[in-house]
């Protein structure tokens, strides 16, 4: 199991456990977490699963995927160097303990 902590814009922390291979987006959706919409189901057609990867996890999550940066341009909240589409972060044992922060809005 891979533990992921989602920190909502108001500071609320939600800890979820997923399987390797799940995405940070799909784990949130499967648990009904507010704050991630995931409208296109992970097809990289929208930016409604925007998250900010915690500073401590930048290296482990790696670089943005091909095309991800372009889709992030349509995110409604500020895009920073920490911004990722959470559908493009695939859980692995190496990401156990991952912390992501969520924007105020996704749509």
């Amino acid at each position, binding site marked *: 199991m891979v533990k992921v902590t989602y920190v909502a814009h108001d500071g609320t922390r939600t800890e979820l456990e997923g399987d390797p291979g799940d995405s940070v987006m799909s784990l949130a959706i499967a648990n*009904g977490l507010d704050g991630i919409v995931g409208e296109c189901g992970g097809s990289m057609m929208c930016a409604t699963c925007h998250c900010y990867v915690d500073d401590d996890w930048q290296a482990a999550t790696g670089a943005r995927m091909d095309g991800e940066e372009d889709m992030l341009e349509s995110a409604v909240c500020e895009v920073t160097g920490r911004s990722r589409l959470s559908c493009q972060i695939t859980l692995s044992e190496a990401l156990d303990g991952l912390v992501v922060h969520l924007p105020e809005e996704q749509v």
Partner: protein
Amino acid sequence: MSAGRVVIIGAGQGGLQAAMSLRQEGHSGPITLIGGEPGLPYQRPALSKAFLKTGEADKLALRPESFFATKDITLRTGEWVDAIDREAGVVRVGAEALPFDHLILATGTRNLRPAIPGIDRALDLRTLDDAAALRAALDRPRKVAVIGGGFIGLEFAAVAAGLGHEVSVAEAAPRLMARAVSPEMSRRFRELHEALGTALHLANGVTEVTETGLTLADGTEIAGDLVLLAAGVRPNTELAEAAGLEIANGIAVDAELRTRDPRIFALGDCAAFPEPGSGRRIRLESVQAATDHARAIARTIGTGTATPYAAVPWFWSDQSNLKLQIAGLADPTDDSVTLEDGAVLRFRDGRLTAVETINNAKIHMKARRLLAAAPVPTRDSLLQRNYDLTAA
């Protein structure tokens, strides 16, 4: 903040989005979401793409069961609405009458089944059950014959060919995806499918589904021990029509997505709505239209302020290693300008109507923004930039 009783007929992605958005808008009244298919609302786009390969049905649920209790949304699936009684202000489900103050029709579409001999032999690809049956049928080498060269048929054909099956596609129109893309893009995808080893039969409609495959208009026989019917859909308008609402290739609604009964809205695949800008009535079959419609309706109900619908349409299709992205909405006869990287710009009356790209999210996103601008860029202004959208 609104507090009336909302009933939503149709628990697909649009119906669910309407329920979720109503809560986000602060709607405090009861929300009942009724769906004909059993189980939780799920994503359809993946059924003709990733799901065929992975078979992971549990990954398709749009929200978990617990979500509905948390949001106080009454989810009733596996139930069919019998009638809308506008006079009584109720929706009838069997002997039960559900009162509504606002009613949202999200009834979607169903597959067109052309009246040709043997059509019952052909399988559909619309529901999770359909997709699971197709996936199971692909467990041994098959001769796959697909009726219809649109998005669904071609996505399925690409997966089947990729798995090593022998695939044929029969399309009545002279080119692939003829309603949705430019002739140039049709050609590009024709090349893709031919390279995958798929036999394409264009301008050659199916006249019969036989025990051994398909018979085409020109007499050609195609071998097929697995036949998929993917010849388009028709909107589910019967409930609305029986209730005396206007039907025009879909449930007719105004710019606020209301029918002529101000309590009743329609969204997504089943709704015929005025295209922002042109005002002509259109009907779109896409996640984008369903969810953006849902949000606009939720805002109208939730805030009491009419919210005209104005989003730029977008579509996508994954076929083999090509991701086709379309921003905007072109007519089949709109002009085309093909750029060096294969992107196609569409124009009507000198204005940009749509941009078709392959594996190019940057241009796609840029196009969405350009098409949202008022006024939309002219062909001349784009030509002056050598059609470089990133410079526009």
